[in-house]
């Protein structure tokens, strides 16, 4: 908390100190009061208890004072937060892409990087984009955090104030390697940044391969994951070239997934049913996919097995 | 138990309520056929609310229940309305 490295830190830290002060005051005060009464009014002293039942004045006092205090806290919390939503028009734009379990940063024009490099004292607007599930983009030193939700256009912005390396975490639980999904933000001089960006190779922004487009449009991913997760059907990850047991005409046989096998699976899914999955869920795509398209799908599946 | 008084509705009154409900149904189906756009949504929901209230008051006997039951039902619908409103605080101001 204690090295606020962006323009937004002051507003957060001020709120923090304010609440901390109020909290310590009340916690210490009330605890002391309780312990004091324990001794002062101990039964050992044999003083009969007094039988009063309340006091309207006191009741009002301790309704109104906390009410005022919480309103003050609310106000500061809001004040510290409001600037976080007001992105200056000249902010540099970077898209953070979250996928299980990796960040990548898109600087436009197909320039993708695994770490976030930023020029010092310049406003950046980060657009947050998720490929699969919810992630959370968090840079503690900058006091910024926003969830990365598929289908949502969330964003955040800040101005880095000091040079150095800062941790970036994924805060929204996203599965197995959630805790491994971290990287660095590096704040550098503007000139260094420009140089770095120039030398960054163009890798991203390549459109989806046709096979993937077909898989998405034909609704395959409703049942087949691309990342190894088991849905209704077996995952496409590593499926090509895999050797596995299928049930054909009620008998278990071992088959290797090759071009022909995939074609049969799509045209006549009931023929070879992968063990552990149910027959009849996948419908035939006979009239919906042409042979050429099936080849494209097969080619794409090969890439998922690194072939 | 038998000391408590129960309101006994007549068969006729039930029949009358049914007639009202059926005509309201006819009304809302008719309105929908007219394709009035945005208004038809409002009308359909309004008619549904009137029908719902009728069922609550007469068929479900709310009219003859204790004041507390009435308040309870009203409060529950109010709570639900508040939930919708607060949810739409998000969706309408995105």
């Amino acid at each position, binding site marked *: 908390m204690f090295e606020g490295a962006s323009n937004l830190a002051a507003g957060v830290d001020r709120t923090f100190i304010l609440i901390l002060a109020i909290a310590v005051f009340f916690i210490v005060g009330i605890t002391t009061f309780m312990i004091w009464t324990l001794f002062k009014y101990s039964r050992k002293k044999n003083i009969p208890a007094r039988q009063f039942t309340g006091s309207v004045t006191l009741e009002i006092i301790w309704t109104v004072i906390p009410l005022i205090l919480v309103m003050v806290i609310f106000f500061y919390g809001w004040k510290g937060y409001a600037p976080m939503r007001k992105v200056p028009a000249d902010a540099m734009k970077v898209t953070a892409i979250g996928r299980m379990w990796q960040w990548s940063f898109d600087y436009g024009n197909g320039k993708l990087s695994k770490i976030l490099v930023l020029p010092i004292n310049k406003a950046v607007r980060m657009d947050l984009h998720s490929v699969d599930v919810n992630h959370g983009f968090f840079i503690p030193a900058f006091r910024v955090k926003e969830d990365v939700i598929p289908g949502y256009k969330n964003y955040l912005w800040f101005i880095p104030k000091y040079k150095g390396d800062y941790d970036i975490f994924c805060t929204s639980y996203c599965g197995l390697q959630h805790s491994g999904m971290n990287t660095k933000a590096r704040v550098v001089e503007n000139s260094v940044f420009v140089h770095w960006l120039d030398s960054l190779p163009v890798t991203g922004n390549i459109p989806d391969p046709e096979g993937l487009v077909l898989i998405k*449009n*034909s*609704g395959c991913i*409703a049942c087949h994951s691309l990342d190894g997760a088991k849905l209704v059907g077996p995952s496409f990850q590593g499926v090509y070239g895999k050797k596995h047991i299928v049930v054909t005409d009620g008998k278990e046989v071992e088959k290797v997934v090759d071009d022909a096998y995939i074609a049969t699976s799509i045209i006549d899914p009931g023929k070879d049913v992968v063990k552990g999955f149910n027959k009849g869920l996948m*419908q035939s*795509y006979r009239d*919906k996919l042409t042979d050429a398209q099936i080849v494209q799908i097969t080619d794409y599946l090969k890439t998922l097995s690194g072939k | *138990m*038998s000391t*408590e008084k*129960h309101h*006994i*509705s*007549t*068969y006729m009154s*039930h*029949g009358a*309520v*049914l007639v009202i*409900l*059926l005509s309201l*149904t006819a009304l*809302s*189906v008719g309105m*929908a056929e007219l*394709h009035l*756009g945005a208004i*038809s*949504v409002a009308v*359909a*929901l309004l*008619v*549904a609310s009137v*029908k*719902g209230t009728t*069922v*609550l008051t*007469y*068929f*479900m006997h709310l009219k003859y229940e*204790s004041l507390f*039951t009435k308040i*309870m*039902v009203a409060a*529950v619908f109010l709570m*639900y309305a508040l*939930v*919708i409103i607060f*949810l*739409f605080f998000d*969706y*309408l101001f995105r």
Partner: protein
Amino acid sequence: MAEIKNIAPSEHHDYQGSKMGMWIFIFTELFLFGGLFLVYAVFRTQYSADFHKAAEETNTFIGTLNTIVLLISSMTVAMSITAIQSNNKGRAIRLLLVTIVLALIFMVNKYFEWGHKFELRLYPGSVVLTNLPKGELLFFGLYFMMTGLHALHVLVGMILLTVTIFRIKSGHVHSGNFSLIENSGLYWHLVDLIWIFLFPMMYLIT
């Protein structure tokens, strides 16, 4: 609150209490469907055009028919309570039987309606459905979930009413003790009440 008596709770039957319990149960049911209504409301504002298109797909005629059937059945239940209160057991039972028959008609209609959707391959997870525009997909998801859950309640209501008939026959329910019939009546009206809202949401809104 007037009479609290010194007898064991098991021997004492608290008429107001059990009715209050039933009302509270009805509230939970309302909120159960309320959750679905919330989802409907949100998607409907976001995809009104798609919802419009998808809603034309639903059969207004069957919907209207079922509305009428349920309204009538609501009335017959209400009447059967009147019958019990005026000590007319035979009539009460007949009215309840009519209610159950109406409920059956409702279910048969529902069967044909869903069956038709399935013929069009418009069932959850079907290829046709998954390839529809987002809003229509959501509409049909809600359609199946809401009408399905409602149909489940119709079934439960039918069972409850059947039990009531047997209790009337065996003489447990009579003009001096009609909690059971009143409470199953309340439940049945709830089923109707929910349908009153489902009907315009699924069949009418254009």
